[in-house]
């Protein structure tokens, strides 16, 4: 039980037991009302793949099962302090081809473990769910009810059946054993709930193989990211060295020379100063472009919302912008999202021949979703353009995905997803000044 934090339910012994009892009963209801039907539905839909209907039936069923499993993961953490990471492979919404989406779902071992869990959880969930409440309730019954009813009705408790046959020993025994059951059952309730969480973890967390594959993925994306950022830093260094820095050197030389010439040849000095001012303007423009490429000021000031709107305004065609964000993602995610949208919009302007474009940015299901579409000629191929490949890499560093549908003749729709959380809406202070 290494993942146990401190007992999550606050309060005294009895209130902790009560909470665990209620939660256990919730689990029982859920196992029968949701888990079992979903298990049956998935088996039936799987069989129906043979007649074709299953192809369309199975994915929503499996997704519903994932929702149920995710609920279990959330409860395990919240109720028992048992962390169960979601094991699913990144799932770009299958657009168009239903077979590919299904193959992706069925190819994920986590899907099969979900199904197995939904079956095993029926008996296990029933047992572990009822136990916390049942032990104590039965113990109380032994303590309080048995002595009164023992002589009146044909009644028994625990091993003493019927009480009449046991006489005084039966009554005393059921009181003592009942009390014992209550004493054991009260502290045990939350632990039984924890045991259920551990059972859930055994099936709902990633397998070792999945973790190993994940490590490989992370290693690959990390080295790509490191390479890309090193290359980026080299480019910035070169730009500064050959650009602004060189211009400032020339500038200070010009000013120094002008200083010398001031007395003898004021006219030449004035010419040099005018040149110097021009050079400073060029240096500033270069620095501005460089800053825009590193972290656009409008993104720092207005977040993704303002950044994307500013991008849309800079396009030579009308762009409908819909942005619904309740807060801001982490700065690195925000930046990756911004540059992804910027690249896609640049593609729209350069290659699509579109008359109109649209952007939809929103956050749902724990991911930032950015959908960019245009009415252009289509035929965009993510494998062909280095720009799109770069965006894929940038998104992959955050487990993000990109799906491009661009049939010849259009329209093109690019869907990008970045798993992330949003912070509360406030302006993030950043260093530096304008």
């Amino acid at each position, binding site marked *: 039980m290494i993942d146990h934090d401190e007992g999550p339910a606050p309060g005294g012994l009895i209130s902790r037991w009560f909470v665990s009892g209620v939660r256990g009963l919730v689990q029982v209801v859920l196992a029968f009302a949701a888990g079992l039907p979903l298990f049956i539905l998935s088996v039936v839909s799987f069989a129906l793949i043979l007649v074709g209907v299953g192809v369309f039936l199975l994915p929503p069923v499996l997704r519903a099962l994932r929702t149920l499993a995710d609920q279990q993961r959330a409860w395990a953490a919240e109720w028992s302090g048992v962390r169960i990471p979601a094991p699913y492979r990144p799932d770009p919404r299958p657009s168009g081809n239903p077979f590919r989406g299904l193959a992706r779902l069925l190819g994920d071992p986590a899907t099969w473990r979900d199904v197995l869990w939904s079956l095993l959880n029926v008996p296990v969930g029933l047992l572990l769910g009822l136990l916390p409440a049942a032990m104590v309730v039965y113990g109380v019954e032994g303590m309080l009810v048995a002595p009164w009813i023992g002589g009146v009705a044909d009644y028994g408790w625990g091993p003493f059946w019927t009480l009449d046959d046991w006489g005084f020993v039966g009554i005393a025994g059921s009181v003592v054993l009942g009390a014992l059951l209550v004493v054991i059952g009260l502290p045990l309730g939350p632990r039984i709930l924890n045991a259920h969480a551990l059972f859930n973890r055994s099936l709902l967390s990633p397998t070792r193989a999945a973790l190993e594959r994940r490590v490989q993925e992370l290693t690959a994306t990390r080295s790509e990211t490191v390479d890309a950022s090193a290359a980026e830093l080299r480019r910035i260094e070169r730009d500064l060295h050959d650009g602004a820095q060189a211009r400032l050197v020339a500038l200070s030389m010009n000013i120094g020379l002008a200083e010398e010439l001031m007395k003898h040849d004021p006219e030449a000095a004035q010419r040099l100063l005018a040149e110097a*001012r021009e050079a*400073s*303007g060029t240096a*500033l*423009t270069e620095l*501005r472009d460089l*800053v*825009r490429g590193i972290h656009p*000021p*409008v993104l*720092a*000031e*207005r977040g993704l919302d*303002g950044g994307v*709107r*500013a991008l849309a*305004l*800079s*396009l*030579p*065609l009308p762009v409908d912008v819909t942005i619904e964000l309740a807060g801001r993602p982490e700065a690195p995610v925000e930046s990756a999202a911004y540059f992804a949208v910027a690249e896609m919009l640049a593609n729209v302007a350069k290659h699509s021949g579109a008359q109109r474009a649209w952007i939809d940015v929103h956050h749902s299901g724990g991911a930032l979703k950015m959908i960019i579409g245009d009415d252009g000629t289509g035929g965009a191929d993510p494998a062909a353009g280095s720009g799109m490949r770069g965006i894929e890499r940038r998104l992959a560093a955050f487990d993000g995905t990109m799906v491009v549908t661009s049939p010849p003749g259009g329209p093109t729709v690019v869907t990008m997803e970045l798993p992330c959380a949003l912070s509360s809406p406030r*302006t*993030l*202070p*950043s*260093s*530096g*000044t*304008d």
Partner: protein
Amino acid sequence: MRVVIAEDLALLRDGLIRLLEAFQFEVVEAVDNGPSLLRALTAHRPDVAVVDVRLPPTFTDEGLRAALEARKEIPGLPVLVLSQHVEQLYARELLSDSSGGIGYLLKDRVSDVSQFVDAVRRVAAGGTALDPDVVAQLLTRRAREEPLQALTPREREVLELMAEGRSNAAIAAKLFITEKAISKHTNNIFGKLNLPPSEDDNRRVLAVITYLNA
């Protein structure tokens, strides 16, 4: 002419004060953060304010927001906004109430002192001063559209200068042609863009900007 300055970098703030005072402006207050700017603007009601977009405490667009806020309280309060970068998005917000008295320039432009002082005076008089970069962005966005393509290169040049907020006289001086020629160009431009003609410089500028911003 009474001016309020908002700039958080002391070096630039002092430079602006010195520059404006050299041209007989009276700097009534120079502040270095957003909240004090709003207070200074509503308290002094200056003839014009020169405001940096990015100010403490958030170092985001504090200055811009304070200026817009002040203009809500004092409609038409002349504000010249300075920034290290110009954004059409911000230009839109500044111009949205279309009551004039708005300037939006790159900080670099301050180095051309006479042009800059001219811009401050123009804004104070209820005119407009848009950075050439903003105008260029506006034109790029509409470049593919019919009416703009129908303009001759000269008319386009005049349109750009007009969108920057310059009067006919100033445009004439800049392009080395007569004012009469300019007003012929402007009439052509207004005809091609289907805008109602107007003799008033400020109103004409606003009409052009509104058209480009649409």
